[in-house]
């Protein structure tokens, strides 16, 4: 049986508060076993097989009456659970300890608050602002930020490989970076706040994408040249789909470093870079 959820604006009034919802430990999803076509007596079985190999999407699953088959339905539920777990998960303390980063947090008080109030995830908390002023590196070419975004598992899985690859790729192109930052409960826009505060010439934020069915492990890199608050997305570049089944962290790091080199040379990014 599921528990009653109390809205946040009443939480402090509740006499017998429900125990806080536990954040489930996230296991990396196993790659889907190659599904068998569910279409009975297909007209062109060879094409069906090609179609299914071309996409992880749910195609040619067959049906019973107007409904899904049980197997399709269960896979769907499982994939949906992966997405929901990813949204609720948080960056583990172990990961935070292994990365040599300045730790900051947005203005959000907890995960539920973060999910409901996107704007608060785009600004640093007052305490983090002070910490960054003391511990952050100023006036670098590129400030690297790692963050949870909407799927902490994406950083958990891809972050440890991406950070050294990215640092090395930038160094190889003569771009200075300074000390990286690890941000919790962060949206893409947090890079603007950090970039302006530290006076960086550009920022990159590597964070978990909004999960889809079965994909809670996909990381994106957003590049912003010439940081300013609430910078338009059209002025940023994004490298997405960094995950075991997609782009490798190393390839993504090289691509990002190339774009940054060009962006810094031209002094502009986003659509103007293309």
């Amino acid at each position, binding site marked *: 049986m599921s528990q009653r959820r109390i809205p946040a*604006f009443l939480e402090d009034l509740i006499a017998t508060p429900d125990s806080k919802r536990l954040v489930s430990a996230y296991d990396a999803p196993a790659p889907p076993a190659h599904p068998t076509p569910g279409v009975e007596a297909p007209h062109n079985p060879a094409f069906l097989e090609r179609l299914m190999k071309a996409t992880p999407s749910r195609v040619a699953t067959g049906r019973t009456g107007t409904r899904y088959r049980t197997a399709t339905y269960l896979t769907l539920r499982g994939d949906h659970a992966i997405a929901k777990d990813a949204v609720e998960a948080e960056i583990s303390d172990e990961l935070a300890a292994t990365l040599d980063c300045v730790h900051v947090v947005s203005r959000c008080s907890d995960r539920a608050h973060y999910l*409901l*109030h996107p704007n608060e995830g785009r600004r640093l908390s007052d305490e983090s602002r002070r910490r960054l002023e003391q511990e952050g590196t100023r006036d670098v070419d590129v400030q690297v930020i790692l963050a949870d975004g909407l799927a902490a598992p994406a950083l958990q899985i891809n972050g440890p490989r991406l950070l050294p690859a990215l640092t090395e790729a930038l160094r190889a192109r003569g771009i200075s970076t300074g000390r990286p930052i690890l941000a919790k409960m962060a949206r893409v826009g947090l890079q603007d706040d950090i970039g302006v505060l530290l006076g960086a010439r550009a920022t990159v934020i590597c964070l978990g994408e909004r999960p889809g069915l079965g994909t809670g492990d996909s990381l994106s890199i957003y590049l912003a040249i010439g940081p300013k608050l609430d910078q338009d997305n059209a002025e940023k570049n994004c490298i997405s789909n960094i995950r075991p089944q997609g782009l490798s962290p190393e390839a993504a790091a090289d691509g990002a470093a190339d774009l940054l080199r060009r962006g810094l040379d031209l002094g502009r990014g986003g659509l103007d870079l293309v």
Partner: protein
Amino acid sequence: MRIVPLAPKILACRELPAADASLLRALGIDIDRFGSLGLLTCDQDDSLYVALDHATKFAEVEVQFAKSFYAGSAHASGPFSGEILGILGASEPDSIQEALIAAARALEEDICFYEPEGGGPAFFPHVIGETGRYLSAQAGIEAGAPMGYFIAPPIESTIGLDAALKSADVKLVRHFAPPTETNFGGGYLSGELHALEAAARAFTDAVLDVADKPMAGMRRPSHMRW
């Protein structure tokens, strides 16, 4: 003053496929479009209105009938009456099933009245993140827009609504003046989600203040003081 949630209870739930045409006509239901019906009674009318609305987001159903009963569930006509009958209509029974499950789950997890710990007035400081097709139409707002749904007994709701409306950038889009069927009062409010949440909190605080000091307004005029 602390509060406790009052869990709503579904008292009866039945399907009614292929209902008699004259009965459907009498209930104002379009027989051609809604051959399948799902009927629910609940001991909290406002919770069920919200749950029925919630169901329209999960299945191809429309709320065909929803009315509160006189004097509320403490004075119900029978063990399965509660204080509301809601009827959902669909073109086929699968949608009714989906809708009923969605409504039951919402009642179990998200929708409820509250009361002060140890007893007191029951009140409903509910905020809907995204309205469905039913309540949005009732409130005259766009489907999918957030809505505040604030209900309490007569004096609590009047004081509470005033506090809510002054606390944030929200608008009263529909008012239910007491006496209603259940003798509660309240209204629907529109605005941004965060503003509605702030308003719901202000409504709650005001209701609790009335419950704590119901006679606070009875003060002796200055010329009678000696």
